[in-house]
């Protein structure tokens, strides 16, 4: 509309707005920005509003202690109080052994079960069941199964392995078993899918050159599998690290299995100290990221190219 007077100016350097508008749009489109990008806008608004903003809000809150005393007072309180600080070690003491066991036990089993055999799909479906049922139900089952009068202790007594029921619930082992029951199938299925991504003809080539099964596994399969193992360990570790319901139900939530998520929960919902709860949540996220970063740095030292298969 205002194009004509602008164009009639002696300088005439800026192009008239009527043409500038499509020009700008054109230039933006060349860099990949146009109206169709609006399709992703709801998702971005959503993630910013419900994930990034709450996270930053929590981070900010953790620097505003309820009881005053400088921005880092809550962090100081957490790290100087052994009852709080030790939750980190208790959580790691559960999560790292459980994740390691799940991954290390899955490797030989998945290695032996690669390829097709009858009943493989059925086995996979059975393994998905505990993942689907989740930790709360597993905890309920473990209370019955591993309890002093449960089937497990009864079997041990009948065989004569023990003289009196062993205590497997309401302590470390109850939580540990619950992490195995849900974590092992998860690790197994992931590693199986990584193994199926390795071209079997590589191993066959090695076999024709006279390599035994251990050499084939050690020098062909394992190096190709290592990145997958690292990823599986990370995911299994994240699952185990956030253990919450089973630590309360089959663990000893006031002592041996007072994991960090219980500390965060108690701060928020029992003491209503939201800054402290946010502090613990941030510490929890940081510890977890440190472990994952360590694993990923270790992984980056290995081969990460194609594995020749479908994966």
């Amino acid at each position, binding site marked *: 509309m205002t194009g004509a007077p602008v164009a009639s100016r002696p300088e005439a350097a800026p192009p008239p707005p009527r043409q500038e508008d499509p020009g700008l749009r054109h230039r933006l489109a060349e860099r*990949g*920005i146009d109206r*169709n990008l609006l*399709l*992703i806008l*709801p*998702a*971005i608004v*959503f*993630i910013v509003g*419900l994930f990034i*903003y*709450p*996270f930053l*809000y*929590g981070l900010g*809150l953790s620097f505003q202690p309820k009881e005053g005393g400088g921005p880092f007072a809550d962090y100081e309180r957490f790290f100087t109080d052994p009852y709080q600080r030790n939750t980190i070690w208790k959580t790691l003491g559960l999560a790292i052994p459980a994740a390691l066991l799940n991954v290390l036990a899955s490797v*030989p*089993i998945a290695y*032996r*079960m690669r*390829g097709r055999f009858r009943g493989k799909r059925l086995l*996979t*479906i059975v393994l*998905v*069941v505990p993942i*689907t*049922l*989740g930790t*709360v*139900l597993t905890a*309920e*089952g*473990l209370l*019955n*199964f591993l309890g002093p*009068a449960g*089937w*497990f202790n009864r079997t041990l007594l009948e065989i004569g392995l023990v003289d009196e029921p062993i205590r497997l619930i309401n302590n470390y082992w109850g939580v540990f078993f619950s992490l195995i*029951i849900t974590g092992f*199938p*998860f690790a197994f*299925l*992931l590693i199986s899918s990584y193994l199926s991504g390795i071209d079997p*003809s590589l191993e066959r080539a090695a076999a024709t050159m006279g390599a035994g099964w251990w050499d084939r596994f050690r020098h062909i399969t394992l190096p190709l599998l290592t990145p997958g193992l690292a990823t599986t360990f990370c995911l299994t570790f*994240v699952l185990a*690290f*956030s253990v919450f319901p089973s630590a*309360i*139900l089959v663990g000893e939530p006031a002592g041996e299995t007072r994991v960090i998520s219980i500390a*965060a*929960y108690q701060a*928020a919902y029992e003491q209503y100290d939201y800054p402290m*709860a*946010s502090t613990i*949540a941030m510490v*929890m*996220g940081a510890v*977890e990221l440190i472990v994952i970063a360590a694993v990923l740095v270790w992984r980056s030292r290995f081969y990460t190219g194609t594995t020749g298969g*479908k994966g």
Partner: protein
Amino acid sequence: MTLGLAGGTRSRRRIVASPGAWLVWGAVAFFLLSLLGVVGSVLVNSFGTRWFGGWFPEGATTRWYTEAWSDFGITELIFVTVEVSAAVVALSLLIGVPAAYTLARRDFPGKRLVYLSFLLPILMPPITYGIPLATVLYKFGFAGNLSGVILANLVPAVPFVILTMTPFIEQIDPAIERAARMCGAGLRSVFLRILAPLLVPGILAAGILVLVRTVGMFELTFLTAGPDSQTLIVALFYSMSSAGIRAQQSVDAMAVVYMAMMLTLLVLALRFVNPTQLVARVKEEPE
């Protein structure tokens, strides 16, 4: 040729059954037996009368179920669970599918950053972001009712739909869309008449996976639910952690109801996705 050879060696190995094989199958058998024990003892106990010693309860009864139905208000719990999961599935597909389309087809500044921010909620444990999220939701008055539970459950669901759908959309030939564009179709009709029919299998798979995850999601629902917006799994947790108030069998009956619901969903899910997809990110090939 080679395949036949490999099959031959494999069957020979199976006959020999080395100690390694025994160990592996033994470990699997032990795991499966424990799993059977865990699930079975809940099932048996929920139908039992009294179970003090012995392998099985003294008699069978269904009274724990009728009791659970009247005491726990299971009908209402199931209704809330269905309401929450239906809303989460619908909203996450509505938000996630267009975003997945953009990510699959387009290149734009900051794409990696956007992708990373969709990845984070899946990698983080729910408790870590759940507590700040619940604090924010309480601040704005969403938590403690149904809308808060739905919003909280959407946080992992939307990225999950995006990550599931992006590879699925990538494998659809863009030439089809271009042809439709040339014939004069706008973005809307490309979406509704070209892409939507092609995407139906992917949308079904993503939807059912989100459904299974939402019904089983404990932490986020637990942190944001009020007394009348509990889902089945949260109510189960509360009745378990206040042990002693109710008979163990009554809690078990409720657990069996939840188990039946999950297993029904699992059977339904396995019609559309393969079992590994329930665990990991969707792979392109159907097997």
